[in-house]
């Protein structure tokens, strides 16, 4: 497969997963506001500000809006085109990538991505979002689920599927870590702090709902919602499909499929980093995580995820940017010495920047 197209499949999936997660988080946050006893400006601000911090760019937000409240933050995360992680921006990017990989995805998939794009672009939809946000976010999530179904129903098992799945699960791992990070203080305090806040339960439930994990959690731990277990479930569960450990394991599986490397061995940088991260998640306890600090641990994991993303790019996608002037010069020389010797091509190292964990990766 063309490297450019593989990259597009990877990012199409990432952006769709991102749009789905942002929708869920915003929707849950809107709904959980209804559960508080007292709802003043301070509370509202506390409820929304962490979302901006973890999902977007704080500075950008402050340059665009005067205060953090339900309206400004949801607008920023949903419809703001300047925010590259807004749902609208994600869908535009997903469609852009779907278009670039148009010959590698099924017609049904393309139609659904395109439909989603036309949906969010239409004026009626904006009205729907204002009048009935629940229905709006539901529609976005449903479309993402449909696309996951279409992926498994229409994609040939091979490199196409591998890139799409890697994009999906890398993004999902990253998003789950961010969902936890939004409430890291509540969780950390509840586990290590002296007193219990009345709102802890509400917030724990919100964290679970933001990851579609509420029911799965209840099934697994019959004893009710406890902060430490909530964090454990989303970080280290080996069976819940949105936990970090599960996502990294799935991601690692599809990564290895491309070369056929066995677990425990690696053939390239991406496999090395991915395997190392998976081993860490496999052999970590929540006591260690809280001892380090939940927020610090999540930061650390996000950095690792970002490194894996960069390594995939360098291993499978990246070609040294052709310097057009040099290439023209080179080709002209070739032309003049018509019996040219074969030239061994060398690929230089990439100059891609490692990103800080606070910022979401962009294509």
């Amino acid at each position: 497969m063309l490297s450019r197209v593989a990259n597009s499949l990877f990012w199409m999936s990432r952006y769709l997963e991102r749009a789905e997660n942002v929708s869920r988080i915003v929707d849950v946050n809107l709904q959980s506001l209804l559960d508080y006893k007292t709802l003043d400006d301070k509370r509202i601000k506390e409820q929304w500000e962490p979302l901006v911090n973890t999902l977007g760019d704080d500075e950008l937000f402050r340059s665009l809006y005067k205060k953090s409240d339900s309206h400004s933050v949801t607008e920023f995360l949903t419809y703001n085109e300047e925010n590259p992680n807004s749902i609208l921006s994600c869908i535009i990017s997903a469609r852009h990538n779907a278009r670039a990989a148009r010959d590698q995805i099924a017609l049904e998939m393309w139609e659904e991505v395109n439909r989603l794009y036309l949906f969010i672009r239409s004026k009626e939809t904006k009205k729907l979002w204002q009048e009935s946000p629940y229905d709006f976010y539901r529609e976005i999530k449903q479309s993402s689920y449909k696309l996951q179904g279409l992926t498994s129903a229409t994609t040939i098992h091979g490199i196409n599927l591998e890139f799409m799945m890697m994009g999906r699960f890398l993004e999902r791992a990253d998003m789950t870590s961010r969902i936890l990070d939004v409430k890291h203080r509540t969780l950390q305090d509840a586990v290590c702090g002296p007193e219990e806040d009345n709102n802890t339960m509400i917030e724990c439930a919100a964290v679970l709902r933001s990851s579609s994990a509420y029911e799965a959690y209840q099934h697994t731990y019959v004893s009710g919602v406890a902060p430490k277990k909530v964090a454990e479930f989303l970080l280290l569960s080996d069976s819940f499909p949105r936990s970090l450990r599960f996502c990294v394991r799935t991601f690692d599986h599809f990564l290895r499929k491309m070369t056929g490397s066995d677990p425990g061995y690696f053939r390239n940088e991406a496999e090395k980093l991915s395997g190392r991260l998976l081993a860490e998640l496999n052999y970590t306890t929540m006591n260690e995580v809280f001892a380090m600090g939940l927020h610090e641990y999540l930061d650390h994991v996000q950095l690792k995820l970002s490194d894996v993303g960069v390594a995939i790019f360098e291993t499978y996608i990246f070609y040294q940017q052709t310097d057009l002037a040099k290439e023209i010069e080179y080709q002209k020389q070739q032309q003049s010495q018509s019996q040219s010797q074969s030239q061994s091509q060398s690929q230089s190292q990439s100059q891609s920047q490692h990103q800080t964990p606070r910022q979401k990766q962009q294509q």
Partner: protein
Amino acid sequence: MLFSKYQAEEFFDEMFTAEGQVRPHYKSLQNRFDQLGVNEFDQKRQAVDLSFMRMGVTFTVYGDSEGTERIFPFDLVPRIIPNKEWEYLQRGLEQRITALNMFLHDIYHEQRILKEGIIPASYVLTAKHFRPEFMNCKVMRDIYIHICGTDLIRDDKGQYLVLEDNGRCPSGVSYVLENRQAMRRAFPNLFERAGVRPVDNYASDLLNTLRYVAPNGKDNPTIAVLTPGIYNSAYFEHTFLAKEMGVHIVEGGDLVVRDSKVFMRTTKGLEQVDVIYRRIDDDFLDPCVFRPDSALGIPGLVNAYRAGNVSLANAIGTGVADDKVMYYFVPRMIKFYLGQDPIIPNVPTYLATEKEDLKYMLENTAKLVVKAANEAGGYGMLIGPKATAAEVKDFQARIKAEPRNYIAQPTISLSRHPTYSDLSQMEGRHIDFRPYILYGDKIRIMPGGLTRVALKKGSLVVNSSQGGGSKDTWVLYGDE
């Protein structure tokens, strides 16, 4: 009763005779359409438009910062060609593409046609798209134009005429296939009774054509469609064809030339490409040879092409055959290479470089259609009878300044076709026709083509950039 008030007026109408009788090959269509009410027809129309939008069958409007995409307006009344007419067109188109390929081979090799004075040498040598640097360059199987989209019109008597030959990168074929799909969805029961020939074979015919010109007759060549990228107005068509053929769609940046061979950059390293169906003009193909500022092209591509390691469809340098001055000489080419008279005539043409013609052109500008020799898409054109005095004057000055660059033709009263108008009724609109001809191991002509329609009342311009739309085109197995 959609057709009850329809007037053919003084034009040649494809569906009705001057006496208002429906032509035999349109009878069953009329019967079916007459069962429809205006509301039902409107519903079908909206459903079709919506499905085009949903499938992303759109083109990008240039110069729009939001990258607005539009659908190519589609009219639900199909244009129908009976078998007898089609056979005639087929013979004429085969003859024409054969002569054009022989002409291109000749002018890039012996130049017999120039030496024998059939075409004045200066016309060819000064043609904007003549590429002297490709003289004596060997082209696989001696085919230059693999894919041709010849524009045909019909005059007030119904006579078919060739308007121009598009031997570079003719576009629009994906609309033919999508239009047919749309018609099938809108009128599921109409086709089996109507005896319409299918157009679905186009992609596999195109694939065969491209395989045939693989370098050194390679058995299982790697084929790619080269697109300028996703912002190009025809990107939908490029991906459509690549998908239908099951080949890669590549951008310039996906390709690299090493050792005079072309490679794609894949996740598993470099993979050699043998045949490129390029949808990029000559000028942008290779910045080493043509425009150095082209970011779309591939440095070294021409080198690989010269070395015979990659085939391009169409070949480099076919643009000379699109020159409207060359068009004038196509009947002579047919006579010279094939010893035949042209089956489908040209539109009578005046060359500004010929003294007599020039005089006539300047005296009658307001009656004529004046065209720049190397423009397409309805640009660089003056329709005398519809032009203002100032526009006429402007063109007269241009003709005098650059006679090599202008031709003129009488205004042809294009045939009309019933078309559903803004007023929710059938009205006559002018149409043209672009069939698609493939030249490989044999000549294959898709039984159908793109019928373009000038949707504005009275307009003669069918180009999509200027208010044109399209129709499904039915070629029948029989004559009614």
